């Protein structure tokens, strides 16, 4: 009699155990290789978000609470490997949904796999317009358009006194930076600024002496650089050693990240940049409280301050979870439709995608002052004073 009850109880338990399914998100991220220093932010962000959501009960699929599992692979900063890994995630591991890699050129290639298999991918790593120019329906991105990266910066530049008149535009030859340059050219023309130098350089360039000499000889008031962190680091160091000190310079990468500022030390001061996200208390979130609490908890866990890459990664996870709950199912097409209608406040800001699948958030212009990132301008007024014009190198502290 006891045995029969025991059997029945055991069967019931195992039935519920089988019933508690998990939703699996798959991603291939650069954990090693030349772009690993930014790629690893995505692993940390995805894990952080998923752990937090699971701790709060997981994702509600219809009537059932399910936990989220993450299958993360290291693509060693190799685009071809990342494509193979996304294929593996879909065909062998049979994950439910996909999270993206870092970098536009990776997203460009990997998103085609997702689209072909009709599986939604939400990515926070690629901003290039090329990603969204193909009419794909299953790809959504939490990084705002590359063409607008310098938007708020150029707006702010026009409000400075005396306003810079001549601009040098430098950009690397990869998908994201070429997109940024294309958009920036239009913005500069509309703002009536004169472009005295418009130069493309090879990705991973280490020597900027010629470009810097040209900037000095053309007397550019402002320098805008769209490139990668290693290039920007070399640019700033060589600007110092060649005594090239434009009144203003702004970079698409590096400025928001901690290890960049650490590597440059005091030489980082004065550099401007932009970020779509700052850890402010005004960004409220269902799971994290607000962005400031999120940043504190993140730093406590991983030992470094999160920047917009990490926040965009967390936003990607939240967007997927939100869409699954809205769709009430794990059906790829239902979730895809729910993603298209996404509209909610999160630790990253308002997550909503335009008809091409890209988020639209304004870039906040920032500047490094006294080793700290200071928000300067976000479209309304100057939140803090911009250090401008930058003093020549020998006069800086």
């Amino acid at each position, binding site marked *: 009699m006891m045995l029969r009850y025991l059997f029945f109880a055991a069967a019931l338990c195992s039935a519920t155990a089988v019933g508690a399914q998990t939703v699996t998100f798959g991603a291939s991220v650069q954990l090693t290789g030349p772009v690993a220093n930014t790629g690893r932010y995505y692993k940390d962000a995805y894990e952080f978000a998923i752990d937090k959501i699971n701790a709060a009960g997981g994702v509600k699929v219809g009537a059932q609470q399910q936990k989220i599992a993450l299958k993360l692979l290291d693509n060693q900063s190799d685009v071809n490997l990342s494509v193979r890994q996304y294929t593996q995630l879909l065909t062998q591991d049979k994950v439910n949904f996909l999270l993206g890699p870092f970098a536009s050129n990776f997203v460009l290639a990997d998103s085609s796999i997702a689209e072909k298999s009709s599986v939604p991918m939400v990515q926070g790593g690629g901003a290039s317009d090329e990603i969204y120019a193909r009419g794909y329906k299953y790809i959504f991105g939490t990084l705002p358009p590359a063409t607008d990266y310098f938007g708020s910066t150029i707006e702010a530049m026009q409000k400075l006194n005396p306003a810079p008149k001549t601009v040098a535009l430098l950009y690397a030859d990869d998908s994201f930076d070429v997109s940024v340059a294309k958009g920036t050219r239009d913005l500069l023309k509309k703002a009536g600024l004169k472009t005295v130098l418009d130069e493309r350089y*090879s990705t991973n360039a*280490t020597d900027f002496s010629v470009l810097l000499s040209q900037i000095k000889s053309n007397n550019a008031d402002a320098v805008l650089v769209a490139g990668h962190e290693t290039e920007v680091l070399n640019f700033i160091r060589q600007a110092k050693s060649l005594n090239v000190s434009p009144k203003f310079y702004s970079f698409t990468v590096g400025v928001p990240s901690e290890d960049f500022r650490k590597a440059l030390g005091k030489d980082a001061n004065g550099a401007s940049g932009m970020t779509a996200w700052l850890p402010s208390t005004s960004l409220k979130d269902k799971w994290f409280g607000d962005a400031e609490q999120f940043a504190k908890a993140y730093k406590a866990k991983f030992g470094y301050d999160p920047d917009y890459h990490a926040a965009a990664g967390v936003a990607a996870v939240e967007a997927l979870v939100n869409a699954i709950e809205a769709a009430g199912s794990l059906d790829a097409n239902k979730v895809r439709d729910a993603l298209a209608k996404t509209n909610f406040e999160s630790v990253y800001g308002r997550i909503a995608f335009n008809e091409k699948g890209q988020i639209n958030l304004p870039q906040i212009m920032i500047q490094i002052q006294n080793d700290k990132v200071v928000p300067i301008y976000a479209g309304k007024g100057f939140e803090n004073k911009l250090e401008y014009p930058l003093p020549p190198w020998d006069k800086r502290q």
Partner: protein
Amino acid sequence: MSLLAQVLVSGVLLGGLYALMALGLALVWGVLNIVNLSHGALIMLGAYVTYFLFTGAHLDPFIALPITAVVLFVVGYVIERGILNYVIRGPMFNTLLITFGIEVVLTYLAQLAFSADFRAINPSYAGANFALAGVTIPLVQVVVFAVAIGLTIAMWLFLLHTRIGRGIRASAQNLVAARLYGVDPKRIYALTFGIGSALAGVTGGLYGTVSQINPYIGGPLTAKSFAIAIIGGLDNPLGVIVGGLVLGVVESLTALYFGSTYRDVASFGVLLLVLILRPKGLLGRTT
């Protein structure tokens, strides 16, 4: 300031760094016939050693350079005695493969040990410069240039006038005869590779002061060193100076007149021209 003058000066100084980069590779290649694909990884290791001596022990990078050289000498000696010695008399393809494997292992060990964060060796004088005839000259790059020329000439004198140097050249020319004269090939090979690695280490320390360090800087540096060594010619250690200067100046002028995006086209274009017209390199013997 004449833009052309400034660009030429930058090109020459860049050439100095290039020459130093290629010196270790050219020595090992010219003498031991080993194409060391892990050369860039050794430069990377040297950069990290100097970086940690600078940040950990607060040693000025230029004072840390000799220590870095000794550390990398030991690393190179061990690699040669422990691994390369077994394939050194075999087909060259085997050494290519093994040194490639060493490069991969060293790079990933560095990633594990140091993470992908960039570092930069940033002494107080890192950005120092002086003006001469309207041209701004970065101090550290001048020193790099001087170190490059100095070490290359020292290497040349070492190979020509010291007993060990003659032993190295003898082993390269005719191993049997050298052994009859009492040269121990195992020791000589390991010594040469050690010297090549020490030179790579010094390059790394200086590179970290003018650029930045991460575990992946090795690959492109090996490729560049390769090109410079071929352009200059392997027969004469002074060849790397010529190769480095030619490349530095050609790249800079290309960037100025055609655009920065064509730099690599220009450098590998020069390489192709040299291979077609003077395959032994600009300083190589034509017979």
